């Protein structure tokens, strides 16, 4: 049977982000976490592959225990196994140190046929982790795929880029990130599974469980570093008009004429 691995991420719910004014780091404890919306299409793709080819889906996520409800959400959608990668040593990881932990966990789960991720998280937005993890694993990678199917022993993917769509054949196992626009329909959680998951807990893997080298973890294992932060001070520089919408729009139109955007 095929084994599919999906990596998901907890991201702060937009609007609940609080920043420590001293250190300028995100206050992760006070944030409300949601499943990264861009990971939903990756889960959907995995479940569709499972329905079509019969597969077992393992979802992994790195973070503290407040990620567990998100793993359970994924379970309710139709995945089989939940693994939380959790260790104090993982904290402060940049994309390389994050990819390293994911790569170690994926390796421990081998053999597998497909690893899926979202194109990017809505907080960091780097889109780097999929290819970086693939680089560490020496696995072929594709980013922003819209479709994935099997033909004999090969995987056939449709990848979308700035120029159009490519149909790509891959002979081996593969790591891919899924386009946020891959599906028109994302299934809701199943009621049965929602009840079932109440009794279930994810496996928890620490640094030693994945045999990670300590110097490659977390802040210490992160080559990129924030050296300084600064605020952009804005000074009022233009004209501010208040009043009735009618008057404002008249003035607006005058300015558009001045700027020769509309001719009358």
């Amino acid at each position, binding site marked *: 049977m095929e084994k599919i691995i999906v990596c998901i991420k907890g991201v702060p719910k*937009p609007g609940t982000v609080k*920043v420590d004014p001293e250190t*300028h780091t*995100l206050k992760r404890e006070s944030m409300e976490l949601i499943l990264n919306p861009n990971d939903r299409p990756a889960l959907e793709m995995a479940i569709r592959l499972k329905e079509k080819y019969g597969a077992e889906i393992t979802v992994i996520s790195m973070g503290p225990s407040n990620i567990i409800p998100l793993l359970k959400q994924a379970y309710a959608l139709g995945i089989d196994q939940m693994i939380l990668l959790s260790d104090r040593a993982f904290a402060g990881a*940049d*994309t*390389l140190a994050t990819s390293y932990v994911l*790569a170690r966990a994926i390796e421990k789960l081998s053999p597998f046929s497909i690893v899926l991720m979202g194109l990017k998280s809505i*907080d960091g*937005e780097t*889109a*780097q*982790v999929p*290819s970086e993890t*693939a*680089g*560490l694993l*020496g696995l*072929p*990678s*594709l*980013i*922003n795929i819209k479709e994935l199917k099997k033909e004999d022993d090969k995987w056939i993917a449709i990848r979308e*880029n*700035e*120029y*159009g*769509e*490519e*149909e*790509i*054949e891959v*002979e081996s196992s593969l790591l891919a990130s899924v386009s946020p*626009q891959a599906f028109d329909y994302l299934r809701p959680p199943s009621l049965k599974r929602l009840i079932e998951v109440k009794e279930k807990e994810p496996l928890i893997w620490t640094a030693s469980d994945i045999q990670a080298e300590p110097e*490659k973890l977390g802040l210490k294992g992160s*080559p*990129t*570093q*924030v*050296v300084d*932060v*600064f605020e*952009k001070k*804005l000074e*009022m*520089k*233009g*004209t*501010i*008009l*208040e009043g009735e*919408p009618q008057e*404002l*729009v008249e*003035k*607006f*139109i005058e*300015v558009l004429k001045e700027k020769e*955007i*509309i001719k009358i």
Partner: protein
Amino acid sequence: MIEKIKLEDLKKENILAFGEIYQGKLHPSSLEILTPLKEIAEKLDKSLILVCLADSLESIHDLESLKKSLADEVWFIFHSKLRDFKDDLYARVFIEIIKSTNPYGVFFPATLIGVSIAPRIAGVLNLGLCAHVNALEIENNQIIMARPTYGENIIAKLTSKTIPVMATISIGAFSPKTSEKTPVFKEVIFPENFSWESALKVRSFRSSKKKPSRLSTAKVVVAGGRGLKNKENFQKLFELAEILKAEVGATRPVCYEGWVEEERMIGVSGVTVKPKVYIGFGISGALQHTAGMENSEFIIAINTDKEAPLVKMAHLSLIGDAKKILDLLLKKLKR
């Protein structure tokens, strides 16, 4: 004629930039990123090299723009197997060049292709990689990169402990410049034993049906944010854009809400615009967005909040409900 040079004889310790060539076409962002990199290279007293992977010299349509580019040298790697973009092979070619020439910095435009191979290289070589930077400078002989941070109006300055320093650079963040001095073109000869095989095979390509958005080069941009309240209101911007011959842009939250497709996102992880006139409806002006439009010539903000950052940046601000003002404006203009 291009000089042929063996991989091992190439100049060492340069600043490398990825010249993205897809089906013979050079992506304009590859020329954009040379603008800040040229300054960096000069300050560090290093050469700036544009590295282009392609099928053959004949297959490249934009040799003229390469000849006028800011690069000191353009290195071409030609092979029939490089005709299609294959993540693993392209990354391996780059890794060979990095291993053999010990560059000080390696930079990519933050296109989908750039974001496909830069992290692969970083993963294989265990290097730091900064994403979507929109400013670069030198401090104490070190490359410092900047990008707005998430969730607040603060810019983070980043460094990378590993050499080469690697980053992807935001699309449109810099304007391409030309140089009088023609770069030296070199064709790099790879060792006999280098394998050009890939686990990927591109079977077919279908050119995108939708017209690419002309947002980054638009003279007039009408953009909308959450203050427009819903998708229906946002869609009215397209009517306005038609009347004003403008392009529609959006903030990140409304793209994620699904009011409009993501390629219309203006900002750090989207497109950078520099129109003559930028009009923002119901946009408060998070740094994530303003980093992508702050160089507009004339900025008009429509917002209920007088204290909103975009209102402070704007040359003209109308304080009021964005939807009401948009409706009224459309009504008048249609008349």
